[in-house]
């Protein structure tokens, strides 16, 4: 039985330094992509195909008007039941023995099903131009530095983090640490909680959040959409059998993108602002 690992992110120890963002770009040789001014310290609105980890900066006033300034390292959650893995028609996305979720770019056709179904909106497409001038797309996201894990190293972000806000270790031990930490900080952070959503089978990036998930724009109770399950596990195989793989792919794209997709006018159904 392979050992599952978890990246434990304790946002209450994070000081928002963003060395983790630079470490990720450095290890993965990702290009810089300067954004327009977003109105806060945050550099990117969300993760992108070239920016796999974005520090969130949130000014949050509690019900008594007391201000807090919250930071969150946001990257792929590496779900146990990953929606992206579920919906990918090309089986390009798979689980490793570490529990991480990785993309095989040879198989990826850039259809975007994964992008449309990720409850956390962490996976993104990037457009390329081939030598014939034709455009194609590939999906990208945090790899949990699986290539480093294979060499006995830890993810680059974890290694760089100087406050110990991020730790990497065996799943059971990390989850226990998270639960104990919440108890330790109850005075300073009464709403602190462990974010390890059951609806996706738990994740391999587990957080101690200082506030409710909605304060961070995270879904309170994310799940793999039932529609995606029905579609992938039942409709697709039956469809392929009945009308052939290629036609199925075309039909599938239409259905996924217009009917099943969680995105309604770009807004995530489960998210939204929340004030206590």
């Amino acid at each position: 039985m392979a050992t599952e690992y978890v990246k434990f992110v304790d946002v209450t120890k994070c000081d928002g330094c963003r060395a983790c963002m630079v470490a990720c770009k450095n290890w993965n040789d990702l290009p810089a992509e300067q954004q327009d001014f977003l109105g806060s310290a945050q550099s990117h609105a969300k993760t992108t195909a070239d920016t796999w980890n974005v520090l969130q900066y949130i000014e949050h006033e509690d019900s008594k008007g007391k201000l807090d300034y919250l930071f969150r390292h946001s990257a792929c959650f590496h779900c146990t039941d990953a929606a992206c893995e579920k919906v990918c028609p090309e089986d390009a996305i798979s689980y490793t023995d570490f529990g991480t979720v990785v993309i095989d770019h040879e198989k990826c056709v850039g259809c975007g099903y994964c992008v449309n179904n990720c409850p956390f909106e962490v996976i993104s497409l990037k457009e390329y131009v081939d030598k014939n001038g034709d455009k194609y797309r590939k999906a990208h996201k945090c790899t949990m530095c699986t290539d480093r894990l294979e060499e006995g190293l830890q993810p680059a972000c974890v290694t760089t983090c100087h406050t110990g806000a991020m730790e990497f270790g065996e799943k059971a031990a990390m989850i226990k640490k998270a639960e104990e930490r919440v108890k330790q900080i109850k005075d300073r952070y009464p709403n602190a909680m462990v974010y390890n959503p059951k609806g996706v089978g738990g994740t391999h990036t587990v957080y101690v959040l200082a506030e409710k998930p909605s304060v961070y724009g995270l879904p309170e109770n994310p799940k793999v959409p039932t529609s995606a399950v029905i579609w992938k596990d039942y409709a697709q195989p039956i469809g392929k059998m009945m009308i052939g793989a290629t036609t199925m792919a075309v039909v599938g794209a239409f259905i996924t993108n217009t009917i099943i997709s969680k995105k309604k006018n770009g807004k995530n159904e489960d998210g939204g602002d929340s004030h206590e």
Partner: protein
Amino acid sequence: MTNSWNDVQYTDCALIMGANPAENHPISFRWLTKAKENGGKIVSVDPRYTRTSAMSDIYAPLRSGTDIPFMGGMIKYALDHNLYHKEYVAKYTNASFIVKDSYKFEDGLFSGYNAEKRAYDKTQWAIEKDAEGKPVKDFTLEHPRSVFQLMKKHYSRYDVDTVVKITGTPKDELLKVYEAFCATGKVGKAGTIMYAMGTTQHTVGTQNVRAFAIIQLLLGNVGVPGGGINAMRGESNVQGSTDFGLLYGNLTGYLNTPVSTDPLNATLAGHLEKETPKTGYWSNKPKFIVSLLKAWYGPNATAANEFGYQYLPKGNKNYSHINLFKAMYDGKLEGAFLFGTNPVVGGPNAGKEKEALSNLKWLVAVDLWETETSAFWQKEAGSDPSKINTEVFLLPACSSYEKEGSVSNSARWMQYRWQAIKPLGESRADLEIIHELMTKIKGLYKNEAGPSAAPINALYWNYGEGHHPDIDLVCKEINGYDVNTGKLIAGFGNLKDDGSTCSGNWIYCGFYPEEGKNRAKNRDKKDTGMSLYLNWSYAWPMNRRILYNRASCDPSGVPYNKEKAVVWYDAAQGKWTGVDVPDFVATRKPGDAGFEDPFIMMNDGVGGVFAPTLNDGPFPEHYEPYESPAKNPFSSQEINPTIQLFDGKFNERGFKADYPIVATTYRVSEHWQSGTMTRNQEWLSELVPHMYIEISEELAKEKGIKNKDKVIVSSARGEVKAYAMVTKRFKPHTIDGKKVHQIGMPWHFGYKGFATGDTANRLTPHIGDANTTIPEYKAFLCDVRRA
């Protein structure tokens, strides 16, 4: 720092004021996080709720420029509530000293003020001496003219209500800070104060630090682990630079430069007499000064020629940054070398400093990249090259990874670094650049005689032949050696004033005590106790990690806190010992003179609650910043009465009628100083690509400014365009019943690099502190409007 980064983990309460270490000294939070795990509290005092505030237990806002009222109120609180460490204050500070009755204080002025000179006759503040010339003391601290009672009287005016009115700090938050920090006055508890430019970059900057010194002495926090007065240096080697005399008023090792305006400095004997106190460790100054002269002039320095003292240039002006640029502006400077400095972005009143550069005949810039300053003449800089006659040379410098040498960190740890990769192209190390320059200059003067050539010919430049000097020879000269035998000197206690020893910097004497043992190269990771790591690098002086650590013990030599003991007197061995090197004569025994005097560098062996050597007074007193929105409630002296004023166009002054908003400048994690390095890095530029100001929701509403709007910030000196970051982290201050707004902005931006933006320093005033002339970047007035 009196203490160190690692030591911070032992604190019971860290007061972080005038600094934002979560952003600007992030590694400090590794240690502050440990302090929190051990039950320590973090207090953040800042006009803005910063990332540091987010990591803290207690936050209190204050209007920029009101640090002295804030701390004065804390001093009063500690005294009123009897929270000070009584034995420490009586025995280890000059609180017991009786002050001469010529000392007076009235309406914001101390006795001895000359309004025309804007200076004090400090002899009016002298201490009463007995027949033997020793200070008269009252250990009960009750004598009305004791420093203690005078201090009490001085700060009785800093009651909580007055403090609240002038700082804008809400009363309950102010008291929470006072309560938390003053609790460290309890015997066995330790509080640390961590500060940076928010404290120092004011016209009262020195006195801001003095206020910290007073509270730390009152609470018994100097010399103890988890305590101290800890300046967080803003550059990896600025500690090294001040140690090595790059401050305009110093030779190396904090010796004073002799100025020609004092007739005593005409001879070495006169200079030594003027500079050398009769008591305290500085009484050894002649040994340090003569050894320094021997280092610089070698065999050309002899007893017969005052050891080359006449070769030393003796200035008659104030050569601070702001005065140099004023002289440049007035056309009085021919040329300038700017080594790794970018005043077009980093200088106060940067627009005027840029104009000043075009008055130079020549400029040599030594940098890793072409900077806003070395390119000041270009169209991109907003200049008309056809109108500028300055000849500009750019010498490419290599980065710290491409050269060897040492840096000294905030904690005085001298850490040697090796060359990791070879420099790119023709870029060179500063060491090589200086070596080649000096070798060439000496070559040009070698056949000349006369007063200009003599000092250059006499300079002993003995670092090997060829382009690359032997850095080991430089190291040895810094440490010092016997000039007759060549033998390295083990410590500054062995330096002599008879010309038999040389040492380039007495405070470092001891880092290279014998052949093959450059202790700056020590890299033993073993914790030798209390995270002091004695075998990792070399800390001056003599590898003592916590300064004045004798004060961590009671007068008999027993540690006040046995669980966190660093040094103690061992009666069996008959000496001081411990896990730190005792900052004390180790063999001093009970009953010996000075056994109870931990502050060995002070003339009287005790800490200075009263400091009669400073230009603006022996006690910190509040004066408003040069540009202020408020009336000083403490006296009719609106601004520091001893600061040097600059007239005319070079430093236009703004007033609240036109510029009602308080402004401050600061740094971010992702950029560094004037941005020459970081705005040339794509990944860092990506994180903070745009110039912005932080503005409260209330002020934004008043001005019709929405988040992300482009705005124009103006001051009496210039305008900058920026994005508006509307935030909850700034709130308007209530100053004496009136609403006073404050904004803040990063000062990293210029027109070069991947991330460009307007330069905040075009707004800041060209005015400096009364003692150091550090510019008042941190509190001035502005106005804001939508672009």
